[in-house]
């Protein structure tokens, strides 16, 4: 019974991105403590899946605290001045202003159709603003809301492709991608293409790809859709780890309860026809 629980715990830890050796040690420790207390591990810790999630989060947090901030803080990474966007007669954005510095998180909120994704596309350089100025750092990461990954490619192939775009070699790209995935509680499996991943895991891949090149500015368009509660917590932990590391983060969000933790809230209002 204890062996079965231990085996399950080990597997779930691996799936949550914990290294095999560390997962083995954590499992042995848990089993040893339960044996010393003279109870079944399941009754002491609860279901293996839940305990594995809690353990994995603790391990990741410990790793994050050990990581030094690599970037210079306080430099402006994104500046928007009177940015306006019109599609023919329909005005989508009106005079948006923002200064975002390294080491800050800004949340973009607003109702459907208020231009949140359009604003992110303008910041990324995918859409031209009708008027106003956009200044930003050159090295950016970008996670779109939809179709950010290729359905028929494996995560490792995504890492290679995105790594090549920022001049990383194949080994380095796969290694960095796998490490970033582990920080989101996910261990990519070989030979599983993106279309066979769950919606939440596909979004984790989307987020990992936005960070692969170690950008100074990360643009995220509601990337947590499909995340379960643990993944959602991991995602925001990741956002604040980026901030602590000195990156500027601009994230489109519908989740108002997280806004007290961000540095800026940019609320967009639907503008409509004029």
């Amino acid at each position: 019974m204890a062996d079965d629980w231990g085996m399950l715990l080990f597997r779930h830890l691996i799936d949550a991105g914990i290294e095999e050796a560390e997962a083995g040690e954590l499992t042995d420790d848990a089993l040893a403590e339960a044996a010393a207390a003279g109870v079944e591990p399941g009754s002491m810790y609860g279901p293996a899946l839940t305990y594995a999630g809690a353990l994995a989060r603790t391990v990741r947090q410990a790793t994050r605290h050990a990581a030094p901030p690599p970037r210079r803080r306080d430099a402006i990474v994104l500046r928007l001045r009177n940015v306006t966007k019109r599609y023919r007669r329909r005005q989508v954005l009106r005079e948006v202003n923002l200064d975002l510095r390294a080491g800050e998180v800004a949340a973009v909120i607003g109702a459907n159709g208020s231009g949140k994704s359009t604003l992110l596309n303008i910041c990324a350089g995918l859409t031209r603003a009708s008027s106003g100025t956009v200044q930003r750092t050159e090295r950016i990461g970008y996670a779109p809301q939809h179709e950010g990954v290729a359905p028929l490619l494996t995560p490792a192939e995504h890492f290679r492709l995105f790594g090549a775009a920022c001049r990383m070699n194949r080994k380095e790209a796969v290694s960095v991608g796998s490490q970033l995935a582990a920080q989101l509680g996910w261990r990519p499996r070989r030979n599983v293409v993106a279309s066979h991943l769950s919606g939440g895991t596909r979004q984790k891949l989307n987020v990992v790809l936005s960070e692969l090149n170690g950008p100074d500015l990360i643009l995220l368009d509601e990337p947590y859709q499909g995340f379960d509660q643990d993944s959602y917590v991991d995602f925001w932990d990741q956002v604040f780890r980026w901030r602590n590391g000195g990156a500027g983060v601009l994230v489109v969000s519908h989740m108002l309860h997280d806004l007290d933790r961000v540095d800026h809230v940019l609320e967009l209002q639907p503008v409509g026809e004029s």
Partner: protein
Amino acid sequence: MMLLTVASISLQEMIRRRVALLFVFLLPLVFYVVRIDVHWQAIRFLSVGVGWAVATLALFSHVGARRLDRRLTVIGASPTALFFGRQVALAAVGVFVAGVYFGLVAVTQEDLPHLAGVALLLVTTVLIGAPLGALVSLVISRELEGALALLSIMALQLLVDPAGAAARLLPLWSTRELTAYAIQGHGSGSLSSGTIHFALMMAACVLIGWGAGVLRLRAVRVSPVPVQESPHATLK
């Protein structure tokens, strides 16, 4: 490095489209078998079938990759490497298909005056089909509409009188000339006119497709941030 990575990963992606690849092989076979009784027509239809199949594969490959390519260019990928990387992968698949059908022709057709000419016409057809599909995908951004446009081009290719001057504007006119050289024993006139038409048509498809691809993927120029600002961010 980017070009080779794009090529190898695109190839892998295409190999995973097994049903699509099956039809890439089946389409030319159907064209060939339908006219097997008239060998010169069978080979001409076969090569048009190969070109159509490769062009359609190219269309779907380029349309399917568009959003990913835009994302890649945001982080610094070269639109040129993305375009030519996919083209190399498509040409590799096309040349493989051409090789298989060259083997079929060599086994099933006897007394061809220039057997090597069949290889030439199949390969040249592939090398036009791949950029032609890309070009259509860049002009018509939706898969269904693009596939119908290719269908129209290929139907014209099969139905129009090849002796007419307007026929030379069609992408696979060279295929007909090279077929004449390979099968009917026409002199080197057909070989040279077919080769020149192929070179011009391929260059046009590649250059226009590449230019349109670069324009489509070109990021909006964004000014760099000022070198140093005083601390304390402001939101206005």
